[in-house]
């Protein structure tokens, strides 16, 4: 064995580990070079990171920038009210115009429908009244439409707010929740005004009035549309007392009976 061969053998023995390590590094560098240079590989690595960052960025925008944007917008609107009005006016104008047109059409259709019901008693009644009084038929129809109507009636147990019986033309609200909330509001108001036996009687809700008539163990809630004046209130009050006396007093547990009677009694109210 020559000296050179001995040296090679010695180098192989001594530097084998380092060489392996160097080879591994070279392999990794190659892989990284491939990843950076080949678009497909690079996108596989980078896309999930960008996607994650973008998602969290989108989620964070409202939290981080929301208040600043809102404040900036408020300030801008405050400082440039005329410009805002100029921009919004045509849009709002159009919306209001459209809404009024649609409501006027509905009103006109309703009036026409009522005037054209020639076979009804109301039609002839209006004709005769109009003829003798000089008031136009349309005015009679309008007055008729503004009349107070009982839309829903609930007999509600005091305290628990559970419904004893109900009468309703519509299914638009959850009656159990309404009864519960009415009871809670009623309790709250009556507790707040610590003046003995005073009761909450009326709640106004946009176009509706909710009239509450109290009895010892329950109360009746009537949802009313139209004009609610003293005359109508008096009529409802009398009707409710009369109904309670005739039908609820002796049938308090008989839900079916009370609901049937409610329907019969108030269907034309």
């Amino acid at each position, binding site marked *: 064995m020559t000296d050179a061969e001995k040296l090679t053998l010695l180098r192989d023995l001594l530097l084998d580990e380092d060489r392996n390590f160097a080879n591994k590094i070279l392999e990794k560098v190659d892989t990284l070079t491939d990843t950076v240079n080949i678009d497909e590989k690079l996108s596989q690595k980078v896309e999930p990171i960008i996607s994650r960052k973008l998602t969290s960025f989108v989620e964070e925008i409202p939290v981080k920038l929301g208040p600043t944007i809102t404040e900036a917008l408020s300030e801008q609107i405050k400082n440039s009210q005329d410009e805002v009005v100029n921009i919004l006016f045509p849009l709002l104008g159009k919306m209001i115009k459209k809404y009024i047109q649609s409501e006027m059409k509905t009103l006109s259709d309703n009036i026409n429908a009522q005037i054209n019901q020639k076979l009804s008693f109301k039609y002839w009644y209006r004709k005769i009244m109009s003829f003798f009084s000089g008031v136009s038929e349309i005015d009679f129809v309008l007055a008729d439409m503004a009349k107070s109507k009982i839309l829903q009636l609930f007999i509600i*147990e*005091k*305290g*628990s*707010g*559970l*419904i004893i019986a109900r009468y309703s033309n519509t299914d638009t609200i*959850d009656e*159990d*929740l309404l009864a*519960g*909330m009415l009871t*809670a509001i009623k*309790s*709250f108001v*009556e*507790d707040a005004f610590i003046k003995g036996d005073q009761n909450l009687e009326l709640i106004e809700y946009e176009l509706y009035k909710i009239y509450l008539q109290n009895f010892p163990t329950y109360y009746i809630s009537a949802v009313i549309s139209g004009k609610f004046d003293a005359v109508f209130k008096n009529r409802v009050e009398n009707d409710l007392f009369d109904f309670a006396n005739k039908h609820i007093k002796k049938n308090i547990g008989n839900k079916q009976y009370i609901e049937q009677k409610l329907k019969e009694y108030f269907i034309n109210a």
Partner: protein
Amino acid sequence: MLSSKKIVLVGHFGVGKSSLIRRFVKNSFSDDYLVTVGVHIVKKTVHIDNDEITLIIWDIEGKEDMQKLRPSFLLGTSGFIYVFDATRESTYINLSDEINYIETHYPKTNLLTVANKIDLIEKNIFIKIAENYKLKIDYYSSAKTGENVELIFNDLAKNLIK
């Protein structure tokens, strides 16, 4: 048979009353804490054998003392669920007095006691704490994980139709 019953959840503020109700009614949970102001009412119908029972659930604002609750909100209640936070000693330290108050003032009602937020504490450790305080606990629950939530309301409903 179809019937409706009023249920009220009581307990200190922040013990998870609203979260338990939300988990039961909507099967959801949120970590955001929203204080209940006044009262919030929801309902859910449960079926027990051949009976159908509508639970009208009153979620009233939390108070550290039952006596501070508005009595009119508690009238006509068929079942109480007293909720406390297993991680907050102040919410259960007076538990026996609170239970005593309910049993004295509303004797004909059903009452269940619930240790909520059990996911945030080692259950065995809390059981030892409960033994020390001699707490009467009917259920361990977590509105977050849903543990026992359905069971609590269903068992109460069963008690109500007995």
